[in-house]
């Protein structure tokens, strides 16, 4: 019951590696956070995982490249890739312009619902970013 309630929340959740997740039924949509896109600057290339590929939580699944840096993307949940944002091939800058909407990276069918509990909510993530900035 409680789990169902949890899954129906559209609240965005966050990983310590600055990925965000939105849960919708069996699928999690994943992208990088505003903090991450701002740190990277102009994104010029996005390498996305293959559809159907299976990954465990924290596996490297792709990369985001900006002018100044390469940054690996890790999946915050275990599961199977069901969809990738092909618009990013032509317009990688969507990650800078709209990281939480049009700039999403991939959708995954998660296999371990318990892992969702380990992610941070908005408040906890903001606190986490603030700490990172202040430390």
């Amino acid at each position, binding site marked *: 019951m409680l789990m169902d309630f949890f899954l129906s929340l559209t609240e965005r959740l966050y990983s310590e*590696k*600055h*990925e965000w997740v939105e849960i919708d039924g069996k699928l999690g949509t994943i992208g*990088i956070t505003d*903090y*991450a896109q701002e*740190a*990277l*600057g*102009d994104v*010029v*290339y996005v*390498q996305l995982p293959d559809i159907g590929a299976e990954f465990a939580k924290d596996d490297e699944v792709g*990369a*985001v*490249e*900006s*002018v*100044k*840096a*390469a*940054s*690996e*993307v*890790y999946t915050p949940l275990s599961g199977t890739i069901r969809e990738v944002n092909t618009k990013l091939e032509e317009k990688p800058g969507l990650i800078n312009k709209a990281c939480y909407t049009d700039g999403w990276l991939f959708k995954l069918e998660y296999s371990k619902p318990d892992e969702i509990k380990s992610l941070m909510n908005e408040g906890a993530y903001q606190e986490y970013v603030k700490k*990172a*900035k*202040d*430390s």
Partner: protein
Amino acid sequence: MAYRFGQSIRTVKRAFRSFHFSACLLNEGNAGRTSLFEFHKRNGGKMVEFGGYLMPVVYKDLSITDSHIQTRERSSIFDVSHMLQTIVRGEDRIEFIESLTVADVQGLQDNQGTLTLFTNNNGGIIDDLIVTKTSDNFLYVVSNAGCREKDVDLMRTQLKALKSKGKDVSIEHLSESHSLLALQGPTAHKVLQSLVNYNLNDQYFMFSRSTEICGAYCRVTRCGYTGEDGFEISIPNEKVEEITEALLNYKESKVALAGLGARDTLRLEAGLCLYGNDIDETTTPVEAGLTWTIAKARRQRADFKGANIILKQIKESPPSRKRIGLRALTTGPPARGHVAVLDPNTNEKVGSITSGCPSPSLKQNIAMAYVSTGVSKTGTKLLCDIRGKQYEYEVSKMPFVPAKYYMPPKK
């Protein structure tokens, strides 16, 4: 996400490798600050540690690409005060600097400068630097921030050795007293002309002079590290903010602050080496494509450190590897430092990337690499292996973007 700042700027000892780079910047520890530190912060500079100093990598209103284009089309101001400025005085100053470098300083005209190298006994490069023979009885030397400690040691040790032989030399580092600004871009001469009372048309590339700017005694050298026309201006610390403001206030075209990010993409397009990435103590000038820095007079005298190895590479046995430029033939991720370069025929590794980025001017990925001499010819097709996928590149001439230095008319 694991965050790596462009491999090219990775030479810093404490390279930040996570998104917590803002944490690094606020964890100021023992990193130095230039006189413009507060000014950069007020102007939205994102500060990162580089060469032991907290320096702006980018400013909030301009992305690296914006800043890069601003420099190519108008002009930008870079704070390069982290670099080591040294004055060498004394009757034997030329003997001193020539004993450490490959330059013919004696043969320079008054107020002319040259790019040169500190070499070691194995023919490796300890640092790259600019030496200017001023008409005021001193040499003006600018070397890399990241090499500060070893450069100071090298110079002090040699100073002691020469002094013990009764030579007349003294050195003074300007770190505590002087800042250094680079004003770079096609409008740089107009911008600077508004603040100096001599005609900049008479000052060619690599020539230097002292002058008054905003009432301060400064040294202006027509040089830079972007491939554009421009100037490096050595300024007393107490006046640097005022002069920076004065340059930014130029009314006829926009002048903007630019950080290390754009400096890196600009120098890479210009085919210029970043010490620690593209050259270091294990690369010889010949391998690095810097043979031209070894002056004729010095080759004849064969009196520089590592001369036996370097001259042998020039005359008899060319080195087995060479620094080359690469251009991507397809879109894809930029090949950055440490990426393996493969021969497409054999799929064997023939070299590695030392610097790489998406070129904002060319809108294609460019890189520098050391590869086997056999595959170093312009036009040779090679593969770069990035995260297990291979992308086609082609050996390209450098600079990737034509240099715009203000050269004297050809006679």
